[in-house]
């Protein structure tokens, strides 16, 4: 069976007319992605659920304000990102505001970890320890960098879309993305460096081959 409102324009028209079935169709289509984004941003299942609910409550209430300049998905991502950042700020009131420029000290751009990982992501499944280290690395990112990285590299938005969601220019989005990636690289490099001590081939190998 064809999904209802397969065409986004039809969906938006029905949403604006207050059609409940259209609202359900929007929730069906976008809730998995919005939940994933929320979970990556706030890193707590209960809070991610709050963000998910707040996003769709707000979207259903304010759909008349959706002007169709961006896609419906981008619009929902924007609501969810703002809700997620709000949660993070409530948790850590001292962290930077979304509008503050993310100015980092000069040394930030100098990579400290220069170790060959000896490991190809394409060749291996991720083990639990590496997944934990990857989660830790994301958790250590300042919220604005984290949002840029999650939107662009995990959710697969274009630079233009990510910039739109974050309400910043494309060049600012690129800067945040690059800084996020460089920090994550540093963190993961420390993990791979530690594992190379154990095995001559480094990475996930245990030295038996």
């Amino acid at each position, binding site marked *: 069976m064809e999904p209802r409102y397969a065409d986004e324009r039809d969906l938006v028209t029905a949403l604006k007319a207050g059609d409940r079935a259209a609202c359900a169709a929007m929730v069906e289509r976008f809730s998995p992605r919005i939940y994933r984004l929320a979970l990556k941003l706030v890193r707590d299942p209960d809070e991610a659920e709050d963000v*998910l609910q707040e996003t*769709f409550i707000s979207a259903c209430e304010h759909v008349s304000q959706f002007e169709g300049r961006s896609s419906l998905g981008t619009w929902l991502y924007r609501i969810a990102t703002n809700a997620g950042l709000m949660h993070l700020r409530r948790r850590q009131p001292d962290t930077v505001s979304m509008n503050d420029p993310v100015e980092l000290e000069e040394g930030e751009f100098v*990579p400290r970890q220069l170790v060959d990982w000896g490991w190809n992501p394409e060749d291996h499944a991720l083990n639990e320890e590496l997944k934990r280290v990857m989660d830790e690395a994301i958790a250590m990112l300042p919220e604005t960098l984290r949002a840029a990285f999650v939107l662009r590299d995990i959710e697969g938005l274009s*630079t233009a879309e990510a910039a739109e969601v974050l309400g910043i220019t494309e060049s600012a989005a690129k800067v945040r993305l690059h800084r996020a990636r460089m920090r994550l690289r540093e963190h993961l490099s420390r993990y791979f460096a530690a594992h190379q001590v154990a095995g001559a081939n480094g990475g996930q190998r245990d030295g038996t081959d």
Partner: protein
Amino acid sequence: MARTDERNGCRQFLAFFSDYIDGELEAALCQEIEAHLAACENCRLVVDTLRKTILLYQMSSPPELPADVEERLFKVLDLEPYLKHHRAHKGT
């Protein structure tokens, strides 16, 4: 291993590595970076591990929306009747 070296001019290229990986650089700068990478082992390593960092996150399986979370979402939006319909079609 030594840090990326000021003398090789590494720092002027570092800020562009993400754009380079994403294929979003203009041709002239791209060529400059490639020439630098050919000569600088440390920067090759940084680009390689930066690329792998992105790949690692892209290949990690995304968390699914749990059924109970979905159920509560439909409930809070007063859309419960549609959830049954949705699940009936998802199951087929």
